[in-house]
């Protein structure tokens, strides 16, 4: 190019992410949402599924039930603060609890890889047993399949769960209203960073542990206040930003969150600075967001702080009429920026 001519306009053509499954389709970001919209809803759509909550709620003979299913493919199987077994139990219990349900029964299906040490399986089963006991749920049915070596990462777990929803309780991600407060139960990014620290190629040492925990007791305490709670979410894959964006989109409301109110542990911040990641997109496994009527927000926060998993609960923002479907954050500088949903997984940057 001669530097003496007007600069020309050039650009590469796009690559549609629609022809094949990419890792990003499992990230909890926009690609995951596209998969649901383009493949699953057209195939399975029905009024219950169409709600797209973390659990389905329906009534059988006047009893309202919640049902959920979840698969776990975390690597490594054992990590600081937990393992794939306790994670599976907590994850399923939490998905039920976010619908306001009392979790009761779980199923567990194992996909085991040929060559997995029996000792590992034993440890994971014991861990699940302990987690289920602590959460007051029973594992009542299960299944096992074995795949050839190289076709699975040691083991995958699928858990489904059923719980009972109190009559009259109607939670849903479409119920947020302008003026409502957004409450977050504690620090963000702990689980994702604990896992990332173990990842090959990114090796770093941290004392940070996964926050994996069952949250149904915390939910009980919140419901016990009698406050009008519109919806609850546990921000797992895709982090805080994905959950907030989902609610904003489903309810067609905007959100304004305050950077200063979001707790990020020093170690998580250090890892994010180093790798060029944003903690808002890092996974959590023992945290929850709730959208609550403004008048009752302080009461709900106070009740949450009584519970071990809600000690750092606080209001982090407000639901707005403006910019429906978009989450905006007020920075520490008093300026605003969008908190978007990522397309796929967050990647470490060098830039």
């Amino acid at each position: 190019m001669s530097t003496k001519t007007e600069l020309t306009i050039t650009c590469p053509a796009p690559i549609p992410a629609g022809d094949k499954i990419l890792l990003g389709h499992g990230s909890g970001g926009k690609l995951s949402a596209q998969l649901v919209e383009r493949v699953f809803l057209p195939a399975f759509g029905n009024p219950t599924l169409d709600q797209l909550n973390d659990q389905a709620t329906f009534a059988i003979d006047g009893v309202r039930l919640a049902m959920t299913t979840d698969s776990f493919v975390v690597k490594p199987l054992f990590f600081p603060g937990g393992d794939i077994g306790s994670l599976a139990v907590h994850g399923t219990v939490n998905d039920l609890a976010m619908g306001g349900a009392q979790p009761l029964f779980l199923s567990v299906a194992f996909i085991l890889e040929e060559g997995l040490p029996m000792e590992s399986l034993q440890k994971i089963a014991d861990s699940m047993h302990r987690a289920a006991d602590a959460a007051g749920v029973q594992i009542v049915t299960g299944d096992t399949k074995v795949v050839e070596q190289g076709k699975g990462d040691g083991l995958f777990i699928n858990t489904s769960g059923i719980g009972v929803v109190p009559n009259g309780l109607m939670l849903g991600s479409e119920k947020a209203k302008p003026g409502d407060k957004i409450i977050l139960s504690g620090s963000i990014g702990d689980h994702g960073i604990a896992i990332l620290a173990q990842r090959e190629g990114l090796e770093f040492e941290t004392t940070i542990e996964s926050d994996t925990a069952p949250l149904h007791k915390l939910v009980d305490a919140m419901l016990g206040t009698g406050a009008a709670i519109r919806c609850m979410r546990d921000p797992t894959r895709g982090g805080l930003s994905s959950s907030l964006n989902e609610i904003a989109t489903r309810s067609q409301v905007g959100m304004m969150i305050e950077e200063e109110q979001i707790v990020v542990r020093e170690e998580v911040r250090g890892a994010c600075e180093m790798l060029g990641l944003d903690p808002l997109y890092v996974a959590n496994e023992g945290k929850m967001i709730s959208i609550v009527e403004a008048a009752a927000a302080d009461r709900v926060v106070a009740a949450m702080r009584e519970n071990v998993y809600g000690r750092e609960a606080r209001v982090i923002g407000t639901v707005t009429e403006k910019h429906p479907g978009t989450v905006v954050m007020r920075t520490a500088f008093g300026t605003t920026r969008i908190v978007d949903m990522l397309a796929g997984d967050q990647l470490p940057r060098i830039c």
Partner: protein
Amino acid sequence: MKYIDEFRNPKIAHKLVDEITRKVSREWTMMEICGGQTHTLVRYGFEEMLPKQINLVHGPGCPVCVTPLEVVDKAIEIASMPDVIFVSYGDMLRVPGSQKDLFHVKADGGDVRVVYTPMEAVKLAKANPEKKVVFFGIGFETTAPPHAMAVLAAKREGLKNFYLLASHVLVPPAIRTLLDAPNNCVQAFIAPGHVCTVVGFDQYESLAKKYKVPIVVAGFEPLDLLEAIHMLVMQLEEGRCEVQNQYARSVTRYGNLPAQRAVEEVFEVCDRKWRGIGEIPLSGMRIREEFAAFDAERVFGLEDRTVEESKECIAAQVLMGLKKPLDCPAFGTRCKPEMPLGAPMVSPEGACSAYYQYKRHLAPSALPVDTHVGTD
């Protein structure tokens, strides 16, 4: 965190902005070269804080964005080979080649791995003697020394299966190209602090003198950048055009000599194409002849191919600072991070992506109705 938190103090930031506002008497256009700095500016919402007379344009300083299309295609070809472990920094995986990106290679069964440091690739080569381990070494002057060190380590350890696919670019030639363009509108530059940490800033002094532009070498925290903008405003208002070093805690005049020596040993300067801009003479670095055994391009016999880039978006003007992402008719509609039309939308470091992620609520005109936002 020490040396980070002190430079993020909101109170001092607002004072600096007041001071800049007091000093500005007319419109000035300044450019930050570096994508990392773009990220800071956009993330902290500088545009909302700074007076309207300060027009910040974002330069071509994202190595991910400017990596030439044919290099991405070569990476994809190598990564698709069955006996190769292809090792890359995370942000290169989504950069579209002419047919696909590295994520698609992975989906097709290619062994593509993300690392934080090139030394991990050296480790992988040692641990997998039956595989060819290829490291995708892209970057500016900052990243060249670590890549040189990885090649030197591989040589020292006698590794026969470690290769570097190198695509390095240099900042000063790009600045020259910008300033030589007849449609140049940039009146002052924020120079990249980490590039200058390695190479120093003496070569920027000839630029400042020849083109009569003020240049300030700046760090990456919000206060660093605000102070740099303040320094540039002072220079512009007083009619000076000097090189000032705002980032003295890391940058010295002559830079990091051991790092320069490592680069000198392994690389030599060459002409280099920049994606979206075109060829810039003597703006890149390639692996020297004596390290040919470690050069992926030579070893895999990938002759220079050129790939035609389509004329769909305004990446060139964005990378050259002539236009802002929000000026693009495709911004936020036909061009989004999940379906990028151009490189600046691919990397989180790219100007378009940064705008899309943090700022599209300020651009009602560029948005589809369903996400329309008024400014708060």
